């Protein structure tokens, strides 16, 4: 990217989101934000804080609690010349608006023979760990990655949050940005000004020689911890953050596996039917002869997200559960 990356400061993930939205509103006059409590309250997790004051009520809109209406508004506004940012407070609420996401937003361009353009950015938040129980803690990216017409990104760091949101907004396609509620306070370097991160390119966050972990979203941080722990066993782990799930950067993972011969995929979503299955299927197909062990997967067990902290703690994958699975795979 041509943009100069200016003055990196240490900021939390939540502020990086905020800066990204500010940049987008500055960059595009036809951009605005709609969602529940995004304006007056600045978002329930504060990532739109201050934007109503800065941009005024013509750019920041509180909506009724009407998720289907909100996404539909984004579809209609985008098809007619706007570049909306729509906020879906919790990813769990995709159930309320899956028709607008799956049948309208994702498909309109194709159904119309390419004669509609839908530059919609949808910000939504997933993840367990906050004792919010079964309806406010899910990671449902598998639903949307299965839908041709959408792009899906999952920022893991403040840097990525800002860059990927800006890239999402600049893209002429609908892009769903899956944020993570437990990452909001994570600190990291964030340049001032506008910059983008190319969609569809994975980030090799840690180089390694004999084991690869692909970690989605917040699991990146657990994977990095696991990689440290695995050093003890003489394992030199490469950790890849796909950044974009759709389109997925298979090549980077294949290249890594050609080198390391072993792959573990980690996500917070329920393991069964999760996006990890797609990655595993692709890699065993494209790197079959390089694999010295089956592709492993770590994900949530097969239950709804439990409320009790005692249960949630063992429900959500962690560095420890990653290490345990890695050792199984590696026969250690």
């Amino acid at each position, binding site marked *: 990217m041509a943009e100069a990356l200016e003055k990196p400061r240490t900021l939390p993930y939540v502020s990086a989101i905020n800066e990204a939205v500010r940049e987008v509103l500055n960059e595009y006059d036809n951009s605005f934000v709609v969602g529940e409590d995004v304006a007056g309250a600045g978002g329930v997790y504060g990532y739109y804080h201050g934007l109503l004051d800065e941009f005024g009520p013509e750019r920041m809109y509180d909506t009724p609690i009407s998720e289907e209406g909100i996404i539909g508004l984004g579809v209609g506004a985008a098809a007619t010349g706007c570049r909306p940012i729509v906020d879906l407070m919790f990813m769990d609420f995709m159930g309320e608006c899956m028709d607008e996401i799956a049948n309208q937003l994702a498909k309109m361009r194709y159904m119309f023979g390419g004669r*509609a*353009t839908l530059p919609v950015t949808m910000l939504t938040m997933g993840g367990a760990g906050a004792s919010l129980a079964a309806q406010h803690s899910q990671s449902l990216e598998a639903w949307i990655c299965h839908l*041709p017409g959408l792009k899906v990104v999952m920022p893991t760091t403040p840097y990525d949050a800002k860059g990927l949101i800006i890239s999402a907004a600049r893209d002429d396609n609908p892009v769903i940005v899956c944020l993570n509620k437990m990452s909001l306070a994570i600190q990291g370097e964030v340049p001032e000004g506008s910059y983008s991160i190319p969609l569809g390119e994975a980030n090799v966050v840690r180089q390694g020689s004999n084991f690869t972990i692909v970690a989605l979203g917040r699991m990146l941080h657990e994977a990095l911890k696991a990689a440290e722990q695995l050093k003890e066993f003489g394992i030199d782990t490469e950790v890849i953050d796909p950044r974009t799930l759709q389109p997925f950067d298979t090549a980077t993972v294949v290249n890594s596996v050609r080198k390391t011969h072993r792959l573990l995929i980690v996500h917070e979503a329920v393991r069964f039917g999760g996006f990890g299955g797609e990655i595993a299927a692709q890699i065993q197909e494209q790197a079959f002869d390089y694999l010295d062990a089956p592709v492993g997967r770590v994900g949530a067990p097969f239950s709804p997200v439990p409320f009790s902290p005692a249960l949630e703690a063992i429900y959500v994958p962690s560095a420890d559960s990653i290490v345990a699975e890695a050792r199984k795979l590696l026969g250690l």
Partner: protein
Amino acid sequence: MSKQISDEVLLDIHRRMVRIRIFEETAGKLAEDGKIPGALHLYVGEEAVACGVMVHLSNKDWITSTHRGHGHLIAKGGEFDRMFAELFGRSTGYCKGKGGSMHVSNLDLGMLGANGIVGGGPPIAVGAGFSNKFRKTKNVSISFFGDGASNEGAFHEAANMAALYKLPVIFVCENNGYGEYTPQANHQAIVDVADRASGYGMPGVIVDGMDAVAVYEAAGEAIERARNGEGPTLLECKTYRYYDHVGVRGMGMTYRTDEEVEYWKGRDPIDMMEARLAEQGILSKKDAEAIHEEVTKQVQAGVEFAESSPMPTPESLLEDVYA
């Protein structure tokens, strides 16, 4: 009332209705002959609604449509050739053959597509209305939807948002008394869908949907309100479809009586318009016939265009998924 309406406008409405009628009758026959694949939902009988509304609009005013969308597109200026081509699944269709009857669209004409999802249109129309207000145009958007669709949550959310933001949106309910095979009395406990308007804080208006002039006038008021920043209106048009929910079969259907069909056919929107035009000395019976003939020829030319158009190429399958 109709005195203020110019002859031009009346003739325009009439011609649009005839265009829909002949297109639809022809499409129905082609479907019966197995020439049009998939599901075809005919608009015959309801022409006054689309045309009475659409004659107020420019290409910069947006509409959303339904599964029963050919009439809306024709009334908005759709061309027979590219419409038939779409219905035939040809690459020359408005959607390159990828959409078909349930997704015919033309954004250049301000037509945001037929929609296979009942209730799919209203939220999108609200988006278009939001866009008009945001971009400070004087344009409106219209959401056509059925009595059946008025029971979808999507309609409710859209109506509430339109009223809240005072958007230039008109919700035009085409109440034809049925959602598929279910009569209105079996899908809602109200008689007038317009009764829902007050629950959103917008006016609800009921109009005879077989009378194009009545529709024209009521729509005109609603559109004027919208253009003036006074917010949305729910306009319910009582109308009827002559043929089956999908496909053609008209009489002898078990879920409605032949008498009922006959009653509504006795109030045919085109017949009524032609009687009015003849009475007012604007269009003689003979001139009307000439229009029917002319349109028939245009429709035939459209069919020929479609039939002689190529199928989409295999390569096109994966095109147009992304921008």
